[in-house]
């Protein structure tokens, strides 16, 4: 029995060694990033996906998930990987999913009733989906948020909520919902305040011999009071 196991192991090792690229890339990549193979090879090795190309070019995946300047909204790249998989509607722990872009975070929205496909379109991951099944681009996210947050959406349309810029008589939204509120953790996070105004110095630090003056004034007042009482 033992011999069979060892033999099987040797065969597997031989197969792995006969594909030198995969054996060399995997440990280095895994050590550096802790990612799974599908991040760079969404269609399976040896083909490289956009993340793989990025890694080949820069030697790191750092900054890959961030939007390059000029690209307005996220959602342009999801299908590169997701077109390869059938959508799985069962809510589950995404332990094997890549962290670049991050798929392994705690969803702090909806008190446990939400799951990725509540908002993301299962058929086309480059878009979002409304409750009625309408497909909308990422840029139109306020329509999606407005489904639950109706009064806030109305306030936003009336320019009471959010930040508006441009001409006062015809302003445009500076930001949409997801620019200020992370949709996966929407509460507004505390920030560092600017420094307070300078405090004026206390007189006893500023005026030399302040205690002497203070004592003299006090003593004079007491003497005057005594004099007034005596008269």
């Amino acid at each position, binding site marked *: 029995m033992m011999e069979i196991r060892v033999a099987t192991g040797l065969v597997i090792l031989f197969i792995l060694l006969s594909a030198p690229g995969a054996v060399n890339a995997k440990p280095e990549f895994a050590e550096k990033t802790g990612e799974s193979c599908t991040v760079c090879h969404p269609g399976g090795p040896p083909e490289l996906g956009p993340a793989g190309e990025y890694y080949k070019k820069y030697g790191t995946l750092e900054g890959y998930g961030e939007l390059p300047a000029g690209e307005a909204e996220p959602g342009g790249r999801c299908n590169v990987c997701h077109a390869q998989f059938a959508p799985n509607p069962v809510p589950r722990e995404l332990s094997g999913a890549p962290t670049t872009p991050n798929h392994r975070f705690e969803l702090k929205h909806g008190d446990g009733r939400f799951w990725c496909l509540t908002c993301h379109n299962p058929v086309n991951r480059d878009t979002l989906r409304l409750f009625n099944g309408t497909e909308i681009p990422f840029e139109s996210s306020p329509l999606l948020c407005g489904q639950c947050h109706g009064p806030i959406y109305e*306030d936003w349309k*009336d*320019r*009471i*909520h*959010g*930040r*508006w*810029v441009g*001409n*006062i*008589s015809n*302003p445009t939204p500076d930001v949409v919902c997801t620019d*200020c509120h992370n949709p996966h953790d929407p509460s*507004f996070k*505390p*920030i*560092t*305040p*600017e*420094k*307070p*105004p*300078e*405090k*004026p*110095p206390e007189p006893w630090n500023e005026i030399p011999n302040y205690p002497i003056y203070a004592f003299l004034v006090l003593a004079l007042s007491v003497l005057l009071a005594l004099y007034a009482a005596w008269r």
Partner: protein
Amino acid sequence: MVDRSRREFLKKTATGAAAAVIPFANVRIPVIDVTVEELLQSHYKEMSEEEKQRVIERLKKEYKEKYGIDATIKTTPPKEGVVWGYALNIQKCIGCRRCVYACVRENNQSRANPKEPWRGEIQWIRVLEFEKYEIHPGGKARDFRTKFGEVLAGINLEESEHYYYPEQVPEKDKFYMPIQCQQCERPPCVKVCPTKATWKEPDGIIVVDYNWCIGCRFCIAACPYWARRFNWSDPYIPPEEINPRMHYLGNRIRMRGVVEKCTFCIQRTREGRYPACVEICPVGARKFGNLLDPESDVRKVLEKKRVFRLKEELGTHPKFFYFID
């Protein structure tokens, strides 16, 4: 009967005196440290367009010499059918003071001088931090106590702190309330000014002609909102931080001995732009617009939200509204 001869005599004397002064226009009078021309300058509301241009040219030259900047000083008049109003959501404000420093940079306020930081610093916006009371049942024994003792809860508007500086804001159980000029419809500061150096413009903004301010600070005493600031010393502004886009009644650089205040960024709003504090607010708590336009941001707030004004009982009728969601 009008005494024509006397009137003409006075007229001629005044004209003659003015003409006699012209050669000395640029002479700087010691002690009070102003030029003859500056001293004899008319009130802004009485200036002709040529006079305004002359004054602006003089100021530009002065700023070029002193700070090395090329400023544009405008005198944009108010728009017809516009009265500006402001609304601030105190439920949203997190007390980050971004507005304070955006205002300082936009309006060329005197910075803290590194040598004596507290002497020259001027900020038009002050953010107050309030603490919420905790409930302590059964604390003090009073005659009118309930069987639970005295239950103190809520907040105390009389006690606030404006030097707060925690690592992160908002802090738990604190709330924040920025105060600045409320642009009263019945402004007590205007009423008390002995030289009429401060007045309400047709678009509702209270402005100051800094050249006519004599620094008596009556307006500071009259203002119930702690909105006016006095230049106790020559303003300290690093030249590279000066905002060169100025308005004569707004953010032009002030001098020692005059009072200044928030003008809703007159240099921006009269050209259709939002005030600097509105644009910077990271939580979108500040709203601004034309009170006469039913579609403006402020009118929408007044229509939909619960609004209050500060110290309403004083009858100053501020055009600055605080609201909650």
